[in-house]
Every structure is written in structure tokens, then in C-alpha cells.
């Protein structure tokens, strides 16, 4: 274990950077950029240290003792309330196999997004301040183990995103920003309601043997903690667990984004500046699925099992629908955006399988989609910076013009269409293995496999439209990628290929926790159904 509170550090480091930046004079934009780079760079280092000290055999999920790097102390405590007993919120951080990959992903993507923000020149100070704030929000969501804390971080990342899209965005930025904002807020309000409902349904024993209401996720997972009359308690004959689950799920589904709540995504992506698209696709979308796995699954195992089929159904819709709509896009960035919709569908499908392979695949897919789609958006950005257009049909024959660029694009594209030996394949394969193994959703899985074909179709078509054929003379002056862009692309490419060949590097991190999760959910569901409710 590590001597210092590493999780707090990794979470709030960006805030420190933000404060430093705010203290800087406006005109020293280059120093501001370096500060931001340093902040995110340190974050990556810390993430690596985390990985170095990570215990692969610890399960986490519901056992507090097997979480790692735990930091826990009372944040808010109000004692002596007449009927409320003790009102308390913990500052409770810790990671397990579910969060570790996401922490790595967040650190990595933030770092790369910072590099790609280098050519932001409009009010640099504000941009990087907000950017780092966003970073903290994202990191916090993945390390928080207290619902209240989780929600705070969740909301924290909302506003910076709104401004980053709204100020530094494209022509229809206001529209996109407000749409993103309203959508997400709508979702988070549902989360809030359920959160409060849970708070008043379960209690936890604190020092001194007193039982108090709690936001502690782990305590909420333990059915023994639920009072009989709590509105979300499984023992309450007329509980509202089902409704609560739906509300929670919608709250998260909006972030994923799950059909039919996905329409904010294309707008947000198209309008957002490249680095923000990278963050959006690379990390933010994962929060939805992470939330479902971390909160909905273990806290509502019974409902989860009952709704498996529907989750899978929506996964399938996402896959096919996203791919088909992507196929029809004329705008490069929109196409990638819809491909995200399709790829997140695999995550849903894998989660729905409630099997280790499937959920391993889902989490792995979250990570891979993070890296791959981040790279795809960087690719769009590179092209857009040079040509100031994103029309797929405006290009052609760039392969001869920008060979190195084409090389990276090919890797990213084939990773996106799930070519074996690249990371994307492994996760999709595991998702299918897991989902196919479940009788009830087998048919949905088989239909989903059309996604592989459609994915290949739009990817290859794009590749052809942009890079093959005669070189469009208009682009004869386009230059190949420069050093900075190499720096952005190489790490991602390496990771994509490495994980494609040696997936265990990532899967070993999560598999123990995933097994724990699956076992916990299944047992929990059975216990509840046994207790007759």
C-alpha cells in the first residue's frame, strides 16, 4: 500500500492545476498550457503508480476490505436529530477492478486531450481551467464509493462541459451545449431522487453501534441493512424498487447514450472542439455504464435480473441502429459519433449477459472504446484543422498525400470494426461469448452480430471515401501529421495493438472483481426472490 492519499491526489490534482492557472496572467497562454499538461501528466504518473501497487486478487464490489487505496472519513455529520438519527455523508474513496480501468482511461485520455488542446487559442485561461475542473469531476466519479460524493462529482462535470462546448464549440454550439446540459441534468435529477430514496431505506452501523441512514454504496448493497418499511427496501411488500431502478437506469442511459436518449450526442460531438469530443467519447460515455455496473447492479440485483432481456434488447438496438445511422452520415464527425452509439451498445449487451465473460467484455469494451474512439476523434480533428471541412465526400485519395496519417487511421479504423489482434476485437468477442452463453438473450445476440458487418461497412466506406481513389486536387497542399500529433497518436496506437495481442494485461485487473460482481448479483437476486418479494 501507499503512504499518501493517492486517490485524493489523483482526483484533485487537476483542481490544483486549475487554481494555479487562474492565478496566471491571461497573456501567458503557453505557460497555462504547460501547467495543464503538467497536471494531467502527473495524473498519468499517479495512475501508473496505482497500477504498480494494484492487487489483482482483490475483489472489491461489496466487500469494503477488498477495496484498495481506501480513503474514508466523515465529511458531513449531523447528530442528535429527533427522528433522523445521525445524518452523515462519508468522504469515501477506493477502487477495485471496476474502477481501475476507468481511472487509467481517464488519466490517459485527459493527458492526450490536453495535448490535442494545444492549438486552442481562444481565451486559453478559461478553457484550461474548465478543462481541469472537468478532469477532476470525471476522476471523482470513478473513485467515489459514497453515493452522495458520486453525485457531487457527477454534477461537477456537468457545467464545465456545458461551457466547453458552448464557448469553444462550432457554429451551433449554443444549441448543442444547452441540449447536452438539459439532457444530462434531467438524468441526474432522476439519480438524485433514487439516491435520496435509497438513503432513507437503508441504515449502516457506525462507530458506537448506532444504526444510521447511509449513502455508503457498500452498505446499500447489503440487503441486511434495509429496514422493512423503507420505500426502496426489498422487504417492503409494496416497495418502489422497480420504478427506482428504471429512473436510475434512465439517468445513466442518457449518458451512455442509450437509444432513444442518444440525440444529444451527435450534436454535442459535432459542435464540440476536438479535445472535448475526445473527452466526451473517451470518458464521459463510460460513466453511464460504469454507474449501472457500480450502483444499479449490486444495489438492485433482483430488478437487474428481471430486466436483463430489456437491457440486452436496448444494447442490440444501439448496435444495429447506431451502425445503420452512421452508414447514412455525410459528416465525418457525426459518423464517428453514431459509431460510438453502436459501440456502447456492445457494452450494454455484455452487461446484460450477467456473465463473467460478458461483463469482462463490457468493461474491456468501455476501455477500448475509450482509446479507439478518442483516436478517431483526434483523427477527425487533425483532418479538420487542415481542411476545415468534415464532409466525407469532399475528400479522396489522401492516402498518397498523408501516408503516416493514413497509417494511424487504418489502425484506428480496423480496431473500430473489431479486427482481431486489435483491442476492439477482444472486447466485442468476449461480449458475444458472454451474451451468447445466456439462453434468454441468445437471439438478440445473434441479431447484434449484424453490427460487425455494418460496422465494417461504414468504416471501410469512410476509409475509401476519404483516402482512396484519385487525390482531390483541392487538398494537394495538405501536410502530413506533425510531431505533436505523433505524440497524440502513438500511445493510443500502442495500447490498441498491445491490448489486442495481450488482453490479459487489462482483463486480469478486472476479472476478479467481475466474478465477485456476477456472483453477488446472482446470489442477491436469488435471496430476494427466496424472501418472497
Amino acid at each position, binding site marked *: 500500500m501507499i503512504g499518501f492519499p493517492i486517490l485524493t491526489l489523483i482526483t484533485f490534482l487537476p483542481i490544483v492545476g486549475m487554481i494555479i492557472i487562474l492565478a496566471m496572467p491571461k497573456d501567458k497562454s503557453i505557460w497555462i498550457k504547460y501547467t495543464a499538461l503538467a497536471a494531467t501528466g502527473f495524473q498519468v504518473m499517479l495512475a501508473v503508480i496505482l497500477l504498480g501497487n494494484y492487487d489483482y486478487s482483490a475483489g472489491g464490489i461489496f466487500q469494503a476490505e477488498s477495496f484498495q487505496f481506501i480513503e474514508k472519513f466523515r465529511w458531513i455529520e449531523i447528530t442528535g436529530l429527533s427522528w433522523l438519527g445521525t445524518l452523515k455523508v462519508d468522504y469515501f474513496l477506493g477502487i477495485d477492478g471496476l474502477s481501475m480501468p476507468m481511472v487509467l482511461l481517464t488519466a490517459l485520455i485527459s493527458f492526450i486531450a490536453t495535448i490535442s488542446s494545444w492549438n486552442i487559442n481562444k481565451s486559453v485561461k478559461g478553457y484550461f481551467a474548465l478543462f481541469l475542473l472537468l478532469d477532476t469531476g470525471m476522476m471523482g466519479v470513478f473513485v467515489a464509493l459514497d453515493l452522495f460524493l458520486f453525485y457531487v462529482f457527477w454534477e461537477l462535470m456537468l457545467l464545465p462541459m456545458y461551457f466547453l462546448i458552448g464557448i469553444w464549440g462550432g457554429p451551433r454550439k*449554443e444549441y448543442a451545449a444547452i441540449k447536452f446540459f*438539459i439532457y444530462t441534468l434531467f438524468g441526474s435529477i432522476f439519480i438524485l431522487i433514487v439516491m435520496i430514496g435509497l438513503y432513507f431505506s437503508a441504515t449502516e452501523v457506525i462507530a458506537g453501534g448506532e444504526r444510521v441512514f447511509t449513502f455508503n454504496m457498500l452498505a446499500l448493497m447489503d440487503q441486511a441493512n434495509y429496514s422493512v418499511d423503507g420505500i426502496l427496501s426489498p422487504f417492503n411488500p409494496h416497495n418502489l424498487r422497480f420504478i427506482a431502478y428504471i429512473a436510475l437506469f434512465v439517468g445513466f442511459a442518457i449518458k451512455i447514450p442509450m437509444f432513444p436518449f442518444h*440525440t444529444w450526442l451527435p450534436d454535442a460531438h459535432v459542435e464540440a472542439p476536438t479535445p472535448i469530443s475526445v473527452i466526451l467519447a473517451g470518458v464521459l460515455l463510460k460513466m453511464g455504464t460504469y454507474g449501472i455496473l457500480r450502483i444499479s447492479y449490486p444495489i438492485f440485483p433482483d430488478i437487474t435480473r428481471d430486466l436483463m432481456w430489456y437491457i440486452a434488447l436496448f444494447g442490440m438496438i444501439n448496435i444495429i*441502429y447506431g451502425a445503420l*445511422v452512421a452508414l447514412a452520415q455525410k459528416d465525418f464527425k457525426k459518423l464517428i459519433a453514431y459509431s460510438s452509439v453502436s459501440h456502447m451498445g456492445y457494452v450494454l449487451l455484455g452487461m446484460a449477459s450477467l456473465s463473467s465473460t460478458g461483463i469482462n467484455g463490457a468493461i474491456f469494451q468501455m476501455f477500448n472504446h475509450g482509446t479507439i474512439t478518442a483516436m478517431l476523434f483526434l483523427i477527425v480533428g487533425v483532418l479538420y484543422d487542415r481542411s476545415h471541412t468534415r464532409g466525407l465526400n469532399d475528400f479522396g485519395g489522401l492516402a498518397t498525400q498523408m501516408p503516416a496519417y493514413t497509417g494511424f487511421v487504418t489502425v484506428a479504423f480496423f480496431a473500430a470494426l473489431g479486427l482481431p489482434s486489435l483491442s476492439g476485437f477482444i472486447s466485442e468477442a468476449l461480449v458475444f461469448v458472454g451474451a451468447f452463453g445466456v439462453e434468454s438473450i441468445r437471439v438478440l445476440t445473434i441479431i447484434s452480430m449484424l453490427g460487425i458487418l455494418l460496422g465494417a461497412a461504414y468504416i471501410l466506406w469512410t476509409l475509401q471515401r476519404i483516402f482512396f481513389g484519385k487525390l482531390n486536387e483541392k487538398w494537394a497542399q495538405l501536410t502530413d501529421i506533425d510531431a505533436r500529433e505523433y505524440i497524440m497518436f502513438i500511445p493510443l496506437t500502442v495500447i490498441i495493438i498491445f491490448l489486442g495481442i495481450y488482453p490479459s494485461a487489462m482483463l486480469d485487473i478486472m476479472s476478479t472483481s467481475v466474478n465477485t460482481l456476477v456472483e453477488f448479483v446472482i446470489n442477491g437476486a436469488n435471496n430476494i426472490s427466496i424472501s418472497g418479494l
Partner: protein
Amino acid sequence: MSEISIINISIIILLLPLVSFVLLIFFGKKFPKLYLAATGVVFVALVLSIAVTFGMLTSYSGETLSFSFTWIDFGNVPSIGFLSIELGFEINNVTALMLFVVNLISALVHLYSIEYMRGDIRYTRYFAYLGIFTFSMLGIVITNNLLMMYIFWELVGLSSYLLIGFWFEKDSASDAGKKAFLVNRVGDIGMWIGILILFTHYKTFTFSTIFEQISLGNLPFDSAAALTTAGILIFLGAVGKSAQFPLHVWLPDAMEGPTPVSALIHAATMVAAGVYLLVKIFVILTADAMLVIAVVGGVTAFVAATIALTQNDIKKVLAYSTVSQLGYMVLAVGVGAYAFAFFHLVTHAFFKACLFLGSGSVIHAMHHEQDIRYMGGLRKKMPLTYYTFLISTLAISGVPLFSGFLSKDGILAGTLAFGSLTGHWLLPIIGFTVAAMTAFYMFRLVIITFHGEPRNKEKYDHAHESKWVMTAPLAVLSLLSIFIFYTPNPISADAGWFLNKWISTPQTVVPAEASFDFMQSGMNKHETGLAQESGIVHSVQYTEAMHHAHYPAMFLSLILAGLGILIAFIFYQWKKVDLEKLTEKLNSLYKFSLNKWYIDEFYHATFISGTIRSADALSWFDYYIIDGIVNASASITRFVSRLSGWFDTFIVDGLVNFSALFSGFIGLSFRRLQTGKVQTYIVFVVFAVLVLLLFFRPF
């Protein structure tokens, strides 16, 4: 050689081409001469593979050496137990021979390409692609499990995509590459589902384990139907790769790639991978599965042959003949002629590669002219090319003394035997017709190209024999089309070491009730080893049937082949028949064949445009309906705000994007209440008092 060294060497063989690929990709620009290194590497691989093959066939014939390692470990998985994914390699005779074939042709093609591709702008890149292809192909060959099979399966798909679209400046080329990849994906999905069925039940991808389980009577989902399904679905993969009907459409287009590539990938090795896969999973094929396979193979052979009759592009003709021959092999597997399927795979690999390289040499000489109607009389100009081409043509047409005769004869015999045992007589009939057609169109090709008078003078004048690096491979390959390499007896392969010593048909593991009777040797499965030694294939009655079928098949095929050749000469050499009249007479048929049965058109009309349309429809739906519901109020609000003389461009949309219609109206009506007249307010107050009294009065 010890077992472990054989394994190690084969792994080295696998990795060598990868090395060349990496080198060329990263340093190709700096050192343009690196392609020589690549060629050298492949030749080293060839030598090693010869060593391995020799070692196998001499010391471990009939055994299976395998080596496997854990790739992914899921730990103790709930309700399953400890689960891990194993990968690995296995070497047996078939594998070893395949290794040799692939490496040999790959090496020859490398050599050939040095001259053929000279001066291309992406010269080194081309060799890099050859490298990655060889790597993936070898992977398919030596894997011992389905997952790796699938992985490398996709990788050859990739390399074929890259090589078909190598000249991507041509739209036709990049289209062809895309088409090849997508069509293959269709098959692969089926294959993947099949694999999943097996994995879901056996929790492993390894062939041997799965076979063992099945032979112990543990069927997937405990139903023979599931096993049949799995077999057919995996076969779908082969349908894609080996260009079987109805997924054969990509192969002819693939001829857009450089000719050596067509020789290596789209004639000799990759397309044969499908057949190789079938050979690998042969033992789990149930009766129904085999029948399906046989029928598909037959149909493919026939359709392709009919199309090949009328094509005018030299490579197209060869392409369709390839499809047709692949059909033969699949048909062979279907009818249980396991050995002959693989045999034909090998022989075909050699002579078809030779044909393609020969055509390449011609095309090279004719400055990339591919239409045979502008050729002619090249025999004098390029004799070596001509004779090698001729030998291979004889081989493919099934003329005795050549390899093709032996393998094809075996297959036809197999179909006959099958017909006699199961009553499916249509298959042999197809088989023989195709044999005749093959002979005809191949000789048509030879005659139009090499005989007669040159039709395009100045091209003809420039034509010349190619350099040795191009002709040497031709020589080697045509040499390998002679019978002597396979059997001492030119008319029967059964005596030959190829079939006797090297290839032994494995005993099916499918339970008796699910497989053909003739597949069941009457005796207990564990004594199958015995069955092999006594030269009995599958079962006594099958062996007998084959035996009876042998001579009739031979004569029949001889006659038909001769007939085909004869007609070809009558038509094109001696011009005894006026082709114009004939085509006039058979116009519809001719058109049908020339336009490849309009299959592409059909696909375009249905699947492709269907997908595109639905995609457009959906994106419309997405934009106008789903987002529309969200945005519904945008329009309403604009209307409302005009009413109230209040207009704001975007925030309104943004704002009301979310609030539905009524929010706008409610807000407005509330505003209306605020009339600004204090007395109205007071009226409201009084009114409110009365209403409240009405609602909250105690009774």
C-alpha cells in the same frame, strides 16, 4: 528432429513473415532494398517448412504434435468454475504439407513479384503486405483452436483487402477490396456463431478437446441438430473465404489486385483456407451438414464453370475456374472424400498458381492488357510461359499424367460412390458436367491467348518473354503438376504415398444416428487406428463404393475432358463453327453466362440498396422523429413567441427543446393573468378566497 523442435520451428516459420512485415512497414521508406530481405526471409521460412514437413512425414507421420498456452484467464467464474481461454498450435501431416505449400507458393510469388511489381510507387509496401498475408495464412494452418482460426481468418481477410485495393487510386480496386472484406464478413458472422455454439457448450476453443467431448457423445446443447447447425455455420466461414455460392461474388472482382497476389491469395492459398477449415472440422460434420456442404460445393462448381465459359478477361476466366475448382473441393468434403479434397487443394494450388503467374507474365508482356480478344499467337513470343501454362491447363482439365487428373478423378469417384450409397445422383452428374466445361473453357483460354494470329499488332510486337525471376516460378509450379510427385501410378492416386502414407482420413466422431451410415466403420471407434492401417476409409462399404466408382469415374471424366478439349479446338482453333451464329442462337443463355447470372445485380438491387435505404430512412427517423420529439417544441415555441412578440434564435430552441408544448402555453397563460390592472388582481383575490372556501370548507 524432436517434437518440441518441430513445434518451435513451425512457430519460427509463423513469425518470420511477420518480421518481414514489421521491417518493411517501419523501415521500408529508408531502405528501399529491404524487399530483398523480405524475399530472403520467406525463402528461409520455406526451407524450414520443408524441414518440418520432412520431419513430420518421416518420424511423426499420423501423429499430432501440439503446444498450447493460456491466453486469457478469467479465474473462478460463478456457475462455471475456473475458465480460461487457451491458444496453441498443432502439427500433423496435413498441417505440415499445408505449411510447405503455402511457404513454397509465397516464396515463389515473392520472387516473381520482384520483377512484376518493379517501379511501383509502393513497392516495399507491397512486400510488407505479402508478409502479413503469409503470416496470417500460416497462422490459420498451424492453429489448434477455433478462436485463433477465426483471428487469423480475419487477418487474411485484412491482408487480402489491402492487396486487392493495392492500387487504390483505381476506384474499381478499392471497391473490390471493400466488397471482398464485407462479403467475407457475412460468412465470418456465421462461422463466429458456429464457434460460439461450440464454446458455449464446451467452454473451450481447442479442436482436440471438442472432438473428444463429441466422441464421448456429449453434443452441444445435447442435440445433434445443434451440432449440425454448428457445422453448417462454421462452413459458412468457408463459403465466404473459399468463394462458394452464394458468396462467391467477391473473388472475380478481387482480380483488381496485382496478378501475383491473385496467384498467391485468390488461387492457391487463402481461398483454399475454407477447404482447409472443412478438413479440420471434418470429423464433427453430421450427415445433414455434409449434404448441405456437398450441394453448395456442387452448385458453386457448376455456376462458376458456366460463367467461365464466356468471360473474355484472362484473369476473370481463371478466377471463375478457381471458384469452380474450390467448388469441387467442397463437394469432395461433402461427399466424404476427405483425402481427395485435400489432395485437390494441393494440386490445384500448384497448377492454379502457375496459371495465374503465367497470365501475369502475359499481362506484363502485353503492357497490362487483360482482354484475351486482343491477344493471340503469343506462343512464339513467350514459349516458356506458354508451355508452363499449357501443362497447368492440362492438369486442371484432368488429363492423365498430370496431378489434376488424379485428384479430380478421386473426387468424381467420391461423388459417384456417394451417389451409389445415398442415392444423391445429381452430385456426380454435376461433377462430370463441370469437368467437361472446365476442359473446354481452359483450352478456349489457351487457344485464344497463345495460338492463332495476333489480333493486336503493336502490343504483340512489344510482347517478349519475361525475365527468369518470373519464369522460374512458372517452371517450378508446372513441374509440380506432374503426377510423379504424388504417386508412381499415373492413373490411380490410391497407390501413391500422398494418399497412402501422408493423408489418412480420420474417423468421424459424430454419433451414429446423426451421421451417414457409410461413415460408421462397423467397429468400435477406439480401434479406428486399425481401420486406417487396413486402408479402409470410413467404413468397408464406403471403401468398396469408392473402389467400384474408380474406373467408371476415370473413363467418364477422360471422355468428357477430351470432349471439352475437342470442342474448344473446333470452336477456336479450327473455327469449324461460326460463333456469331451460335451466340445469336443461344443469345439469352450467352448473356446470362456473360453477366455472371446477374448475381451481382441481384445483390445490389436487394441487400446493398436495401441497407443503404434503411440507413437513410433511419437517419431521417433519428433526425426528424426522435430528435424531433425532443425538439418538437422548438417550432411550437417559435410560433408562440411570435404570438407574444418575443423572439430569440437559439436559446428558445435550447430552452424549449426540452419543455414540451404545454410548458409554453402554461407559461403564456400565466403571463396573461398578469394584466397589470390592480383591480383585476383584487378580483382574483376575492375569487381565490371563494374557491378556497369551496375546497377547504369543513363539510
